[in-house]
């Protein structure tokens, strides 16, 4: 009797083992196929792209360091000019950072609103979740440079069109990230507030925002860094700031690479500074928990 049950138990373990090994082999086979497909796509894609290039990738790759080399060597010769040039470009850098800060602030406020309206379980009008999601998609889909060009055409060149363009894009991009944060928020405090008769605005502000604020802040600070770069680029199409100076330094070519180097140094320093600042603020906020 005991022998038989022991035999049955061994047979049961054997069947579990066989079933699991079978599953593992199937998973491994899928994995191998996926790997082959991935490598094949990468190789063929690269060949197609290389064929469509005006020059050849392999012919051009050797020249990749020529331009930076030229900039660096010229800047090296005029290294004494750099501090003065950096001082000269400081006001336009401040303008650029200002555009980024204002657009991040406006965009994040809008994103907070729209994300709450587009999150299942939190939305004021659950039927309109899809509508708000599509609005965010549109805000995100249109490149900020296109919005800036249209606004410059209507309003004229300057920092305001750039600010609006970046704010619109920020609202779309942060809205999506914020609504993912909202989905992970616990509904228990919200239910607690609902049970005392709070309005939707009270439930969101007092029940959800305290839970999600640290994540909101850290995404917003990341977006601020991205927006500094975006606002520098928009200078190229005539909305002021350091990008405008960079374009002039580039396009007039000969003899102004020291200015290019100074602007790059300023931008690099700014990004490092804000990166350090944002991690400091994030840490203090998390430390309070």
């Amino acid at each position, binding site marked *: 009797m005991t022998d038989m049950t022991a035999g049955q138990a061994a047979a*049961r*373990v054997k069947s579990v*083992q066989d079933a699991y090994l079978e*599953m*593992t082999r199937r998973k491994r086979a899928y*994995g191998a196929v996926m790997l082959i497909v991935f490598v094949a796509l990468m190789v063929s894609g690269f060949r197609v792209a290389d064929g469509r290039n005006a020059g050849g990738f392999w012919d051009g790759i050797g020249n990749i360091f020529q331009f930076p080399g030229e900039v660096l060597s010229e800047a090296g010769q005029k290294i004494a000019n750099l501090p003065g040039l950096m001082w000269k470009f400081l006001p336009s850098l401040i303008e650029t950072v200002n555009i980024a800060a204002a657009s991040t602030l406006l965009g994040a406020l809008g994103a907070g609103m729209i994300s709450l309206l587009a999150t299942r379980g939190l939305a004021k009008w659950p039927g309109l979740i899809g509508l708000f999601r599509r609005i965010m998609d549109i805000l995100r889909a249109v490149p900020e440079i296109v919005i800036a060009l249209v606004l410059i055409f209507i309003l004229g060149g300057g920092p305001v069109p750039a600010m609006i363009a970046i704010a619109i894009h920020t609202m779309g991009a942060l809205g999506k990230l914020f609504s993912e944060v909202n989905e992970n928020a616990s509904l228990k405090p919200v239910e607690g507030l609902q049970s005392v008769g709070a309005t939707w605005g009270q439930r969101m502000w007092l029940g959800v925002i305290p839970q999600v604020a640290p994540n909101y802040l850290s995404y917003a600070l990341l977006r601020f860094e991205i927006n500094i770069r975006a606002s520098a680029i928009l200078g190229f199409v005539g909305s002021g700031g350091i990008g405008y100076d960079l374009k002039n330094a580039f396009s007039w070519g000969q003899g102004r690479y020291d200015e290019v180097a100074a602007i790059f140094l300023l931008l690099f320093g700014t990004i490092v500074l804000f990166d350090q600042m944002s991690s400091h603020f994030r840490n203090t906020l998390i430390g309070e928990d």
Partner: protein
Amino acid sequence: MLSIEKLTRTFGQNTAVDKVSFTVEKPAMIGIIGRSGAGKSTLLRMINRLTDATSGRILFEGRDVTALKGGDKRAWQSDCAMIFQQFNLVPRMDVVSNVLHGTLNRRSTLATMFNLYPDADIHRAIEILDRLGIADHAPKRAEALSGGQQQRVAIARALMQDPRIVLADEPIASLDPMNAQLVMDDLRRIHEEDGRTVIANLHTLDTARRYCDRVIGMLHGRVVFDGTPAQLTTGVARDIYGADASFSEDSTSTSIETLDRNTARALREAEAAI
């Protein structure tokens, strides 16, 4: 075998573990009791090297474990399994993969990243699961299991390490009485059948009495009691927990027998009242 010498750990101003010394000569089942904040968890985490000691030494068969670094430290951790209160499994991976994690120290990083384990290991993992009575759950995700089942998966992961010592940090504190008994029975079997040393932090006195060969009591980071369960009188227990005369062992108990006892007494009192 295992000897701990004046082990101390301070966090800022607080001393979590204060000059703890004890020796384990031969494989035994040891229960560590004491109120929360007494330093029980920190002590176990230091033995596993999850937390570094501030001063003092841990010697295992003459080797200074506290001085190990890098690969040697990880090899020691593989020899000294840890079981956690909240199980600490990877919730989205299947049960067998979680058990196979016990072999990570012996396998190459690249192979394990693609979940490639030898068939022999997979067979052994399922045999261990069968020994703990949960082989049928092998292909399920760990998060789909109940707390008691997850803790047994964690024990299976520990056994997969083939460790010399099993450390259990409040293994039954998150479990209902029935599952708590199953898990404690499993830990006792690991000691009796495999001859491994089991050191468990326990939050109930009766569990320590029932399952352990030796009980160590801690208060404010110091060892205040070290003896057999029989020597652990109610008076001693009051000292360990820093409690007064109103302290009753039954009131903290979670074992089914004690609950029965309490219910029976309550019923008797109720009947007497009628």
